């Protein structure tokens, strides 16, 4: 089954537009030099709204930990069960993390600590999402 399709809003549209161009672009606060994801109206650390800009990142990370969803609540994903849900930390700022189903990694066989690279996956017409793939 296809994944659930994100519905961009005013705040998130630049992020999803970048994803649709196969770029991972997150907010960067130039006042305190911190990356921020998901996007917010203001910097989580210093509260500045004016100093936030969008910044493309390399899209490299590591698997922190994972679970396997065996009985989730989301109808559209139920046929996929069991499936991995991993927590990915971004190498450029490890305080930023992402979820991933780790395409290609069988359930329960997640190499915790392994390096990953962002990839992009189509979930609906003209809509990609960011996913992560283990780097061999």
């Amino acid at each position, binding site marked *: 089954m296809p*994944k*659930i399709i*994100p519905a961009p809003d005013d705040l998130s549209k630049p992020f999803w537009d970048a994803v649709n161009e196969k770029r991972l672009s997150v907010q960067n606060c130039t006042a305190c030099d911190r990356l921020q*994801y998901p996007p917010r109206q203001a910097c989580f650390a210093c509260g500045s709204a004016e100093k936030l800009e969008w910044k493309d990142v390399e899209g490299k990370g590591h698997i922190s*930990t994972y679970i396997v*969803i065996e009985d989730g609540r989301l109808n559209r994903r139920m046929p996929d069960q069991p499936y991995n849900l991993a927590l990915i930390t971004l190498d450029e700022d490890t305080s930023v993390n992402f979820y991933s189903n780790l395409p290609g990694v069988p359930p329960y066989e997640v190499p915790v600590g392994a390096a990953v690279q962002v990839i992009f996956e189509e979930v609906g017409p003209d809509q990609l999402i960011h996913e992560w793939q283990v780097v061999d």
Partner: protein
Amino acid sequence: MATQPYKWRRDTDGLGVWEHRGKVAVAGFGHSPVNRRWDETSMDQTLGAYSMLACELAMEDAGVTPDQIDGVICCDSHIAGSSGGTASNWAPRPYFEPPYDSEWGLTLVNGDWLVKQLELPNVKYAPSNVPTIGEMLGLAAQSIADGKCTTCLVIYPTGNMEGRYRRGGENAQDHADGTRQWTFPWGNHGGNDFINIFPHNQYCLKYGGTHDDVAPFVINQHRNGLLTPWGYNASSGMVQLTEDDYVNSRYILNPLRIFDCDRPVNASAAYLVTTAERARDMKQPPVYVLNHSQHNFTQRTTQPDLDEIEEWTDRAATRMYEGAGLGPADVDIFNPYDGYSIMSQFFLEAFQWHGVKRGDSFAFYADDIRVEGPHPFSSSGGNLGNGRTRTAMYTDSIEQLRGTAGPRQVTVRAETALAAFTTPSSGGWMMFGKHPS
């Protein structure tokens, strides 16, 4: 001129000792029966009927009459009701004769509805938008301390009906908006099971141990639940959970098992909260409120990690201890939230109950945590032992301080008690005392 919102929360660091410490007391409580679900036909088992029953029992317990009630604080968010979002709307449906000719009284209850049905003639304070019980008892304590009312019923209804819990609504949609756009595409519906299972895994990696080390705690919660006559487990003929039952139970979010999750129920509970002065003339020994505190921390990224969870719970513990003027060694009864078993270790270690430090919980669980032992952790049995009433932690604390907990009565000193319905990120804590200071 617009009315300013009532600022009752103690939700910032460094507030010092609560100025009303010991001046408010719990004088009574009442529980309805706890059913798995409302069957949609038994009118004496609706959430409204159960809430009225709980109020009547609380008044009877305290020895007060309806005309003495001048405040009603009722949480109007009933778990799988509005707080569950559209995933758990129960309306519309066929209705009945008044007062059940709308959703009110069936699966929705609020202060106004209860005042009318209970025919309380002197209520002058029945606020709307009342938060869940994690903060609600704090609202009640502060309201009484501030003179908004003097004798207050505090009600927490928890509803459940036929069908899989929170299936439907936005959980059944193909698109995800708002905060869900950052979690739903990957399968995370955003509940506290997801929020806490990742830090729990990190906890096991950091401090050593496996998820199965939670088993003694879960089993003991069920044991304490079977010692709680009003709870779901004891009143439904459930048998004691064994280690085999636990480790062989099915996974929900592997490694989180079904027995790590509390069971949604249909029930209501009420507390009679009043001034310490009035409580001393009522039927039961007063249980004094020594502090209430709240917190609402913001996560910095997609998923809180262990460091963030530990920082939040440390701050919540500091706030509570500071406001109560007490420290870890002063707390006799400790009833943290256990709606998912994997949260409780974070609270235990933050509050350092019985000297438990970061990373020590699994060894503590493996020791003697029975109510008759030296470390009667979570003597209530919590939600895991009683169903998702979210009230067992408070009721047990009151009973332990009164000395009326029956087979759950601890054998250690029982003069102070900490109770909570809270997650690491948001909620509140209550400190109760057998004595006002």
